[in-house]
């Protein structure tokens, strides 16, 4: 019962943080320097790892599907399989996992450190709400950067798959056939559904990691504990939300 009360308390606290942050949305134009800085940190610095990982995920997906689909004589549909899987599932989920590990951990570490060393208290006494200065620009940046990263992940995955199909002797599906299959069976909403998922995951990661960081109590040791907690919670939430968001999108 105590455990349940704690969980409900955390959910309430996270929602309260969201409301308190959104309340200051009107201040975003004059916080554009912070917003741009966060876009750079969240988006630009994540690009290399997103590119490399999604390229190889697309490649492995093509390799594995080529191997199994050859038995059914369905090699011409590899493009469709890679395209749909990357756009609807692996693109957004992989980007979200990367963001949780790379960006979420950094957000929690920074905010937890500010909390432990009383910088958050200093902001509060200066009548500068931490939600306005620290949380809102990050939420806005993730909303803008997450779809961009997901699109780049999709493209890299698709091209990774195409290269493998073209140059793997046992598959030997040329790029033209691969992309024809990819385009033929994919609809625009397959891509937009993936982008919606990426958006939801990114938003939840930043919100949860900010909440955990701002609610750190104790000394430097707790900063590490908070980072671990934030990353683990984010990963669990990504996978749980993935099921429910996918179900909702398929029903709509």
């Amino acid at each position, binding site marked *: 019962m105590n455990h349940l009360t704690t969980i409900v308390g955390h959910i309430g606290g996270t929602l309260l943080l969201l409301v308190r942050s959104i309340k200051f949305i009107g201040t975003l134009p004059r916080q554009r320097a912070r917003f741009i800085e966060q876009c750079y940190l969240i988006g630009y610095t994540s690009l290399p790892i997103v590119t490399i990982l999604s390229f190889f995920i697309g490649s492995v997906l093509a390799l594995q599907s080529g191997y199994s689909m050859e038995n059914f004589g369905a090699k011409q549909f590899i493009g469709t399989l890679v395209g749909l899987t990357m756009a609807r599932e692996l693109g957004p989920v992989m980007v979200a996992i990367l963001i949780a590990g790379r960006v979420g951990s950094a957000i929690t570490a920074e905010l937890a*450190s500010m909390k432990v*060393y009383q*910088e958050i*208290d*200093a902001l*509060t*006494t*200066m009548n500068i709400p931490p939600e306005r*200065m620290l949380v809102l620009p990050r939420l806005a940046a993730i909303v803008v950067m997450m779809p961009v990263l997901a699109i780049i992940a999709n493209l890299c995955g698709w091209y990774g798959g195409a290269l493998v199909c073209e140059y793997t002797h046992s598959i030997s599906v040329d790029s033209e056939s691969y992309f024809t299959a990819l385009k033929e069976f994919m609809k625009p909403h397959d891509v937009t559904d993936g982008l919606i998922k990426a958006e939801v995951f990114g938003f939840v990661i930043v919100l949860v990691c900010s909440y955990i960081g701002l609610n750190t109590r104790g000394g430097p040791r707790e900063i590490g504990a908070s980072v671990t907690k934030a990353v683990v919670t984010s990963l669990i939430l990504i996978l749980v939300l993935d099921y429910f968001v996918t179900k909702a999108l398929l029903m709509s």
Partner: protein
Amino acid sequence: MSTSSTFTASPFVGKTFGITVAKLNKKFGRTTVLRDIDLEVKPGEIFCIMGPSGSGKTVLLKHIAGLETATSGEVRIGEYDAADPETRNKVHLALVFQAGALFNSLSVYDNLALYPREHRECNEAGIRERVMHALAILSLEKSANKFPSDLSGGMKKRVAIARALVMEPQMLLYDEPTSELDPVMSATLTEIIATLREQTAVTSVVVTHDRDLAFNIADRMAFVMDGRIRGIGKPADFKNPTDPVIANFLNPVIDLKNPRFKQLENSHE
């Protein structure tokens, strides 16, 4: 170092607020930190809170700053509840933290400029003037472009005080303002606290161990011991305290033949 320069007056300055603490109790889990604290700080007064480490002085100060919520009882600033976030829109309050609490990602200049920038109190030229003026008072002009990680503990403390000055507060709360400062800087700070009150009628609450500071500037002082108010009055009342606990705190006798730690060791046996 001169502290005679006039502090710029903000729209807030002129209104002064007193503090009323009534039946304040604070518990962290099962530990009671503050017990039935009652005190009143008059508008424009310099009030010093003294007491041994761990007696609850800082927790009391945090309640006044609205950073802690009371388990029971209340703290009021003027007619406003200190725990209500709205109070910060009505009362200009600055707290000088013991460890400085500077923003590590910002330079010294930006630490000071943050408040006027966020509250859009003046243009960048005005902000620069205010910041450089506050830095000059604390002899920190040469450190404007440094980052907190490049500063010593004492310098961080001075930057924290300068940051509070830039805020042009109506109420200034100091948590151990002279710890880690050399004697000259301690004396300067003592003068700054007194000058600020003289020029802007700011209400000041100073939590300190520093007897010289407290007896030089306090209008009134309180002794907090084991979470309770042990004594409250004017500095003159404590020159020759009758309470042996306060007397021992203010004038501890160093006895090398019968040291305290040996007495403590024996008491555990």
